[in-house]
């Protein structure tokens, strides 16, 4: 199932959070060879994790991390605007209708449903929050995976060679892709909405009768 969890709420999901940061370490440091900081527990975290981002996480039946990505509004600090604006022709990508999406990660234990679920989750954010675009820094070696799920980003700039290669990409809402992801997961929109609402809503709703 999908969970939408703010950074400060990760402590309510210790197993999920631990396996997410561990899988990020395995993917970004070990497999992709990025020069990222990994702590003694094998957790990969950067300064943007400290900004209380919103994580969309695919949870496996055993409660561990199957895949995840991290969102921040571009009206605040973002990786692109802080470090990679030279790859965007000097345009600072900043708008309340654009969020940054980074650290797209898939656990080795996960099956194809993980990536499909994440794409679905990104679509739910767009539909529910009136977001029109996502932008993000990604490893061009991931493009093949993105293509597989019909969510190849528009690459607006890239630099470096080998493991240092990095690209800035854009994604926008595609309603057909959203439908396709539901079909691939074998769930209805109602189920997807339910996952979203269970994460985003407090357990006790406001009563009009009060």
């Amino acid at each position, binding site marked *: 199932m999908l969970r939408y969890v703010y950074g400060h709420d990760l402590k309510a999901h210790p197993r999920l959070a631990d396996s997410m940061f561990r899988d990020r370490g395995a993917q970004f440091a070990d497999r992709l060879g990025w020069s990222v900081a990994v702590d003694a527990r094998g957790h990969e975290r950067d300064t943007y994790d400290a900004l*209380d981002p919103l994580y969309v996480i695919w949870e496996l039946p055993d409660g561990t991390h199957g895949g995840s990505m991290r969102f921040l509004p571009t009206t605040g600090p973002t990786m692109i605007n802080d470090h990679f604006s030279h790859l965007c022709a000097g345009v600072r990508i900043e*708008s*309340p209708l*654009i969020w940054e999406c980074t650290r797209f990660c898939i656990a080795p234990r996960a099956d194809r449903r993980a990536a499909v679920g994440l794409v679905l989750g990104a679509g739910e954010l767009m539909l529910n929050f*009136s977001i029109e*675009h996502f932008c993000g820094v990604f490893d061009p070696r991931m493009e093949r995976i993105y293509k597989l799920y019909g969510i190849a980003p528009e690459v607006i700039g890239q630099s470096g060679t080998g493991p240092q290669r990095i690209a800035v990409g*854009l994604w*926008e809402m595609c309603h057909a892709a959203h439908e396709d992801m539901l079909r691939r997961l074998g769930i209805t929109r109602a189920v997807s909405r339910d996952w979203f609402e269970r994460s985003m809503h407090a357990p*006790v709703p*406001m009563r009009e009768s009060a």
Partner: protein
Amino acid sequence: MDSEIESILEQLQAARDLSDLQRATEAVRDHYAIAHIVYHWVSSTGDQYGAGTYSQAWVDRYLEKGYLRLDPVLHGCQQRFDPVDWKQLDWSGRGVQAFLREALEYGVGNQGWTLPIRGPGGQFALFTASDRCDDAQWSAFIARAQRELIILAHEFNKKALEFEHGRGGAPAPPLSPREQAAITFIARGLSRAQAAQEMGISEHTLRVYIEAARHKLGALNTTHAVARALSRDAIVL
């Protein structure tokens, strides 16, 4: 109907003091024919300021009772950045229930939507729309107006930041050369596809450049962004 929001945005950008912000909240409320619009800046030290259409009696009551302490809208929004429907918040607890009853008595409304805004250097503000209606009517309204409300929220916040930095302290950032080029081509009547081709970029990238320019110009949409760029002399045809 768009043009009315456009003129409210113009009014907002011309605002010189808090009373102008106040009038802008009234104009937004009237445009949507809802109960309230409120812009509320809360500093990390608990100081607050803002503008809005809540009754003076409610504002006084809120301040007198120090409701900032327990207001679920503030507490629920402080650690997030997505738009929040008040039904998502935790209204349990005796104190909060009493607060809710009072809010309803003072005409705040039984429905609410709040956008938390994280500004520069830890600045934090809330932009709220509220009304008295049923759930279906409210979600239909939010579905229709959310994009505009998000844009309005950020324009109120830009203005408040400008006031905070003192007159002339935080001028609107100029368009970058690529944003300027994108807006200029559209202003000359080129289609997005043609403009993208002229600039040697994809249409999607062009849309993002235009969106970045729209946000800088405080415009509602592309057409409005073009008009604002022209009136500000930000582009030359």
